[in-house]
């Protein structure tokens, strides 16, 4: 199946009023007092080279569009979010960004999660929407990397070579210290005890 078609199917699946999910954003804090609640929708599209993500921000009470609000788009990565773009909603409450079509998947399922957020706005409470998107770049298979040195266990020949090299140098140092001791032992008794020849 052509990759483009594949992407289109996935996008269609997720772009019909995608998700406006709670990610810990809906509970109120003191800072949220007096701020409006909003609904954030995320729609996905694509052209030949870029993904197109469109966020639509609506008033939760009136369902009317909210304009002039900054929204930020991220791709979920292992332990954090990778920013892929930002924008400001227009009079229809819409903001769009483009990011490369060859964005890598986050795991073997060949999917990645795109998030859009309204954060730290003076009038709107924080809100997040997310969509799961299929990547056209295969996730690297978890095969053993031939470069064993970056593995978790050092090869035996390296352990032996390392300790042999370090050990031999330190053995010479110790032998030199022994020679220094012999210098002291070779002194006349009167010299070391009475400090006079």
């Amino acid at each position, binding site marked *: 199946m052509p990759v483009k078609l594949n992407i289109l199917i996935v996008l269609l699946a997720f772009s019909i009023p995608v998700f406006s999910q709670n990610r810990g954003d809906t509970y109120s804090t003191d800072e949220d007092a007096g701020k409006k609640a909003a609904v954030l929708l995320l729609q996905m599209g694509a052209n030949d080279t870029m993904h197109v993500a469109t966020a639509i921000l609506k008033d939760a009470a009136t369902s009317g569009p909210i304009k002039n609000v900054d929204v930020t788009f991220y791709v979920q990565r292992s332990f954090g979010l*990778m*920013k*892929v*773009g930002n924008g400001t909603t227009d009079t229809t409450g819409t903001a769009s960004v483009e990011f490369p079509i060859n964005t890598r998947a986050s795991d073997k399922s060949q999917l990645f999660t795109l998030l859009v957020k309204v954060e730290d706005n003076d009038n709107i409470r924080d809100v997040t929407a997310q969509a799961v998107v299929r990547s056209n770049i295969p996730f690297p298979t978890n095969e053993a990397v031939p470069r064993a*040195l*970056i*593995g*978790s266990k*050092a*090869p035996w020949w*390296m*352990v032996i070579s*390392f300790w042999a090299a*370090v050990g031999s*140098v*330190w053995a*010479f*140092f110790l*032998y*030199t*210290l022994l*020679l*220094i001791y*012999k*210098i*002291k032992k*070779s*002194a*006349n008794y009167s*010299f*070391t005890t009475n*400090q006079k*020849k």
Partner: protein
Amino acid sequence: MDKLHQEIKNSIQRELLSTVGRRYRRETFWVLFLAMICVGGTIAWIIQLRKGLGVTAMRDYASWGLYISLLFFFVGVSLIGALVSSVLRFSGAKWRYPLIRIAEAVTLSSIFFAGFMPVLDMGRPERLYFLITHGRIQSPILWDVVAIATYFIGSVIYFYLPLIPDMAIMRDKLTDAPPRRRKIFRFLAMGWEGNHRQKYFLKKAMNIMSVVILPVAVSVHTISAWLIALTLRPGWNTSIMGPYFVFGALMAGCAIMILIIAKLRHGYRLEHYLTPKHFSNLGMLLMALTVFYLYLNLNKYGVPAFKMAKDERGLLNDLFFGHNALLFWFTMIAGLVIPVIMLSIKKLRQSIRWVVFASLLVLLGALINRYLIVTPNMLHPFIPIQHAQPGFTIYNPTVIEWTITASSLAGFVLLIILLFKLFPVITMWEVIEGVEKNGEEQVGIEDLSNLQIIQGHAS
């Protein structure tokens, strides 16, 4: 060559011992000045420890900045000890005798601060403990820590070995020194009385150390090079890094050696022992090393520049024409080409001033070169930087970083000065022995039969 007359030996010893513990007004000023910079650096480090590495300009991309650049500089400078004590020893250069202790002091001081620089670069230095408990043998960071520690211990031993007979001279001659100091002299002299057995053991120890210290010294700098060469980054992903670092280090070490002996010669009035011959010979050595380093630079930058591969293009454009172009071309032209031209002219090479000037240019170039090896490469990773937070894609060191860096350099110089407050600058017994075996001309010192104590030296 006949044995030197005892009176001449006494004169040499008296002259060289006169610098130990003596206060020089200008030197006191420098000690106080450098100590103040060190105090400033310590305060800056405390601020960095309390507030974290956020007070530096290091971020996700340029996570190595001035501290690691200075680490490479110090590790490089430390190679001078191996060059003088080992390479010149094997090549039979007799003129090395008056330089041995100075070279070892530079090595000792620089490797001490080299060991300190990674600690400064760590936001949580106490985690160094985990490198010992959880270290991975296949990690170059572990190799580097082990190599630096080994080289430091080796340098302490090598500094001490030629000091044993000198400590005996100090024990016997400086009888009016305070009792505590005399006790230290006695302890460090190891009962030295110069009998055949003691000479045999000392020579054997020095022979062993001069052989062992060379591979250790080379490994220290090669491993430092591998710290970056084993990383997949434009500019670092090259097999030339090991020799590039080693020869750059020898060059920088030679340059700093010339500057330090010039300062000691003038400040401690050691004109009899540190003569134009030493400057001329070191100048020649510096020229050879600089020419070779220029050749390595041609390979390191010229070969990828010819291809201008996509991954290297950003970095090379930055170095050749961009943000770092001024620094890059300064290191190439003022730091390499001009010193080579200067030092290749015999008349200039025989002038101490010109040799010192050329060395200063080389040293400045080497210092900047370390920065250019480290930071611009980090700002040009293989994967392009997209939508980075402001400030992540540039590196402008903060006042805290400059202060800590300056204090490390100040500490390096201060430690050398303090070492020469405790010990004679020149190895007395080796110079005497060298002159007895080879004559003054070979050793490069002035005619000792006409030796007159320089005014202000004799006690």
